[in-house]
């Protein structure tokens, strides 16, 4: 895991790097963490979005994908349903661009 799983399997102790420092940038992308989530998940309402990217800035994980300076749909593989993005979203003219919705199992 975390870049320390080689092609064949897990590393042996002789291959442990000092301090277990991960030298591979962005290796967390290899691990999907969205198998569980709080009862609510964020919904993006594009017409209310001013592309301020505060949601991208505040997201503690990797759920908001940005391409060419603009956010796209949520990546729920990394969303824990914390709701910080919805809380921080300024929206447009009082209408939030992110709202939390109860997740239907």
């Amino acid at each position, binding site marked *: *895991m975390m870049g320390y799983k080689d092609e064949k399997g897990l590393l042996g*102790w002789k291959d*442990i790097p*000092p*301090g277990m420092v991960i030298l591979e940038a962005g*290796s967390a992308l290899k691990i999907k963490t969205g198998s569980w989530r709080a009862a609510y998940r964020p919904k993006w309402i594009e017409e209310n979005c001013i592309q301020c990217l505060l949601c991208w800035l505040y997201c503690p994980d990797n759920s908001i994908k940005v391409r060419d300076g603009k956010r796209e749909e949520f990546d729920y593989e990394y969303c824990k349903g914390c709701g910080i993005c919805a809380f921080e979203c300024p929206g447009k003219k009082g209408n939030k661009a992110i709202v939390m919705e109860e997740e239907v199992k």
Partner: protein
Amino acid sequence: MTKVVAITGNEAVAYALRQIDPDVCAAYPITPQTDLMQRFSSFVSDGLVKTELVLVESEHSALSACVGASAAGGRVVTATSAQGLALMWEILFIASGFRLPIVMPVVNRALSAPINIHCDHSDAMGARDSGWIQLWSENAQEAYDNTIQAFRIAEHMDIRLPVMITYDGFIISHSIERIEYLDDEVVKNFVGEYKHLYPLLDVEKPKSYGPLILTDLYHEVRKAYSEVYKNVPKVVMEVAEEFEKISGRKYGLFESYRLDDAEIGIVILNSAAGTTKDVIDEYREKGVKVGLLKPRLFRPFPYEEVGSALKHLKAVCVLDRADAFGGSFGPLYFDIAASLYKFSDKPLLINLIYGLGGRDYMPEHAAGVIEELKTVAMTGKVEKPKEYIGVRE
């Protein structure tokens, strides 16, 4: 040119830190360390060092800031005593687990409760299994010399581990004695430029510290770390040999004093070793074959070397300036016992607890220990494997 001065232990260690000029120091004051950090902060204020001094709200924060600064890629120092070290407890393991070469003088003081500001070794002993290398120092000269050598040991690429340097609170930290300072340039050259390993501030090469390691890898990580400590004695000796060239002072993994032809021996740490050596000289004049072993590298403990140095004796007393609370032997005793266990012919062993909370250790105490050892060696019997000395009934 060395300079001979009359100074306190804290002054000597602060002087060493000025000569080394670390990048970052985050510290919180606690007696008897306060005087050390106060002196160092004066050097910062006076512009004599370029160190970024971070004033924090606790020792937990002090060591946390040091962990951050060290991972960022700086040469980092802090210092503490007693409760301060206890409050660092959680982060001690993070520093060693991240393999960060932080250097920390620990000015030995008794742990609360009862609250006490004077010397014993319960603080550093409580942290002996936290993954930090420990160098123990008898006097101000050794504290100064060990501080300079600690950076070389910690930062060695085969090691990259944090190092504590211990010296006795008040007895050494606040008492004036004669020591020899090395020249600033000599110390700077000896310590050398700081070499990075995985600095976070190297933004061209992004990296992460502190991954979650669960059942699939933690066991391997710990095995790998346990192997690293095997490199430490060799590096400590290499650094000591180089240090001898610049200072004329010889250091080893431990000091042997009149031990080779001895029949009975005392094992003791730090300042009380000095008193004991004096009393040993007196007994030697009377024909009593007594010697002393004073550990310097206490973690990792050089079991092979210590065991070989003691095995020929008839009786050994381990003097601990810390009791292991909860009804076992003193901490030093365990290591000496473990180092001797493998030999079929080995000395009888006793453990005496002395000097807790700053209680004076006097020459008559050392004499009493030697008398007891004579009896143990003569009778071949240990009546009391563990006892307190210098205690009122």
